[in-house]
């Protein structure tokens, strides 16, 4: 990047299944006002506004234009970028590009989803090719079920291990006032929840949430002048995957995988050899429990086949040596368009030590966030506390 870019503020709504009290514009505005307040900025100081959500999830075309009032975008530059579930992170990348280009100093990135208003089932089934598998679509659950059965058959993990992930997420969420599913549950509760597609149960999956997140980025000069605790964007990487070959669900695959390709690129950029030591906190995009275990391995936090041992030993707990998703993650809050932005914002809060009750006890200098969407796509972002970290 030609200029250093910092996160100088951010905000989010509380996330919930029902937000009958606000329309989409009003909900987005809540996050924006929170972000401006956090950054101690007025809307007049924002140079560019980037607005994103899952395109057409709420059945509305050109949502960015509709959001203009609530975002303060009237008369300002901006564009709408969409990349599916990764879009929140893509939007922060786009914001960083805007700042690094030298054309703009301060950028407001906005991401949201009001899932209750759209027909999520119908729109999700539209992800499938219209002539290839749409009649069987909506099988995101089936996809992660196959991942789970492949994981168990290959590595000898048990359903209890995925349940441990489900419990960790919801117990962490109880410490996060913004999270959606704050459940005081144990392993038995997960195993007794409704079977959706073996071995995926209701509590193995993410919820459908309403919510928004906004993050403000600035150049180094503005950040140092205006912000007490700037968090620096150190590297970003995007990797998509081809349309029809979805090998992630098969843990034995020998083919190059988006997640490993992307992490090895970002590690190379940063000179990381041992990610579990280099990064202090991970905020990853896990739409289902089994995906979290596969992420551990794909990110190199452990050897292949060892992911379930990390959760078993509590290593990824909020107070463990490698905390993963202290916020409660996507398993606790999934306002899809905003989910990937929340991963980055929650990581920034950890660096600032502003995460409140879900702050990890250890020192946090560096974090890694991942996103997930499309047909196995990811965007990764590394943040640091200082430019020397």
């Amino acid at each position, binding site marked *: 990047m030609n200029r250093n870019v910092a996160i100088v503020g951010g905000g989010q709504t509380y996330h919930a299944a029902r937000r009958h009290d606000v329309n989409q514009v009003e909900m987005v505005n809540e996050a924006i006002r929170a972000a401006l307040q956090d950054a101690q900025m007025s809307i007049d100081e924002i140079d560019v506004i980037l607005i994103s959500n899952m395109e057409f999830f709420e059945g509305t075309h050109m949502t960015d234009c509709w959001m203009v009032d609530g975002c303060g975008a009237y008369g300002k*530059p901006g564009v709408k970028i969409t990349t599916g579930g990764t879009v929140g992170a893509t939007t922060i990348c786009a914001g960083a*590009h805007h700042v690094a280009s030298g*054309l703009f100093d301060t950028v407001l990135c906005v991401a949201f989803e009001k899932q209750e208003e759209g027909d999520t089932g119908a729109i999700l089934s539209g992800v499938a090719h219209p002539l290839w598998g749409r009649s069987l679509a909506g099988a995101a659950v089936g996809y992660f079920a196959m991942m789970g059965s492949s994981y168990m058959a290959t590595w000898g993990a048990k359903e209890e291990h995925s349940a441990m992930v489900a419990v960790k997420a919801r117990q962490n969420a109880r410490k996060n006032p913004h999270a959606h599913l704050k459940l005081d549950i144990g392993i038995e509760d997960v195993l007794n929840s409704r079977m959706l597609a073996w071995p995926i149960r209701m509590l193995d999956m993410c919820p459908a949430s309403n919510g928004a997140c906004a993050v403000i980025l600035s150049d180094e000069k503005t950040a140092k002048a205006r912000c007490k605790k700037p968090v620096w964007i150190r590297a970003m990487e995007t990797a998509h995957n081809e349309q029809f070959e979805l090998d992630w669900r098969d843990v034995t695959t020998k083919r190059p995988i988006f997640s490993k390709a992307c992490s090895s690129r970002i590690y190379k950029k940063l000179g990381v050899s041992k990610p579990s030591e280099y990064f202090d906190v991970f905020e990853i995009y896990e739409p289902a429990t089994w995906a979290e275990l596969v992420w551990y391995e794909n990110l190199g936090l452990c050897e292949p086949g060892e992911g379930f041992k990390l959760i078993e030993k509590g290593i990824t707990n909020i107070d463990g040596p490698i905390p993963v998703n202290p916020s409660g993650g996507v398993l606790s809050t999934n306002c899809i368009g905003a989910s990937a932005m929340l991963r980055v914002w929650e990581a920034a809060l950890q660096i600032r030590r502003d995460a409140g009750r879900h702050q990890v006890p250890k020192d946090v200098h560096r974090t890694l966030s991942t996103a997930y969407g499309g047909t196995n796509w990811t965007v990764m972002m590394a943040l640091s506390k200082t430019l020397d970290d």
Partner: protein
Amino acid sequence: MTARVAIVGWAQTKYAPRLPAVNYPELAYEVISQVLDDTGLSIERDISNSISCSHDIWDGQTISDISINDVIGGHLRNEEKMAMDGSTAVYYGAIGILSGEFDCTLLLAHTKMSQTNRNIVNNTAFDPIYTRMLGFDYTSAAALQANRYMYKYGISHEQVAKVVKKNLANAKLNPLAHQKGDFSISDILSSPLVASPLRELDIAPDTDGAVAMILASEEKAREITNDPVWVLGLGTCYDAYYLGDRDLAEFMALQKAAQRAYTMAGIKNPRREIDVVELSEDFSYQELLWTEGLGLCAPGDGGVLVDSGATQINGRIPVNPSGGLLSGVPANVAGLNRVAQASMQINGNAGEYQVGDVRIAVAHGHSGYCGQHHCVVVLGKE
């Protein structure tokens, strides 16, 4: 701007009302493989990232870049999608290169308008709480804008028809255009009424097609071509959303987007310094309104400008020598097609519709109804 970005290649399909033999990834691949062949670049070796440009609802697929990913070289690589007009791909692509993150970016815009109904698609761009149930679409909204504009400034039907006459005549020179011909003003004013004052010939026709383009950093551009087209200025701007929020005869957002692009390009007097303009007139009257917004004449003088013949292909400031969108360019593809057409003018490659020696060209795109978001790109020669 100290660092510079260049357009080093582009390719377009032939435009047609309906291309039923190909699906949209195949349509996209046609232009992607052509632009790679023309520039001698390979995805693996040269392209650092790609940006596609389309809408899920037009494509009939959720996250529709899923279907574009393979043909654009997105596998294990960086691909992003603009859910806006194609001009914004140039804007965002150039910003990515200026950021230092990328040095060679493949852009794509595609739409098959024939596969759905534009009015139903565009109805969903109206807010669901106060407007959508009334059944508006871009054509009926544009008709309100046209009427307001013509009323406010006394623009005549003949003046608006002159845009159609000029563009469809220009299109005869453009081998890729599909709507073209010599029409008299009375032919145009007697074409079937759609939504007053707009008639069939006032409205860009349903079209299928795609455009691909490659942007490069200055260093990379020098390796690729001897004829780079430089991106000198960029500007975007959002306007108010609701139809009644603004006087539809005004163009604050276009004016601001243009001002940003001109300032960046060092253009002080657009009327003198710009040699050719390719703008997005989804509807005939918009060419007049947008020429005002781009500062080519005073507010309200769009009609006078077209009367003067200045915007003719051989005029003082030719507008849409390619035939414009009225000649048949798909929604969303529009802005990227405008940039490609303007680039052809810069390089002297526009064939029969070359307007002479072009040093500065302006391309324009807009998204939403009645110009809710504008994007202006200033291009220049070495």
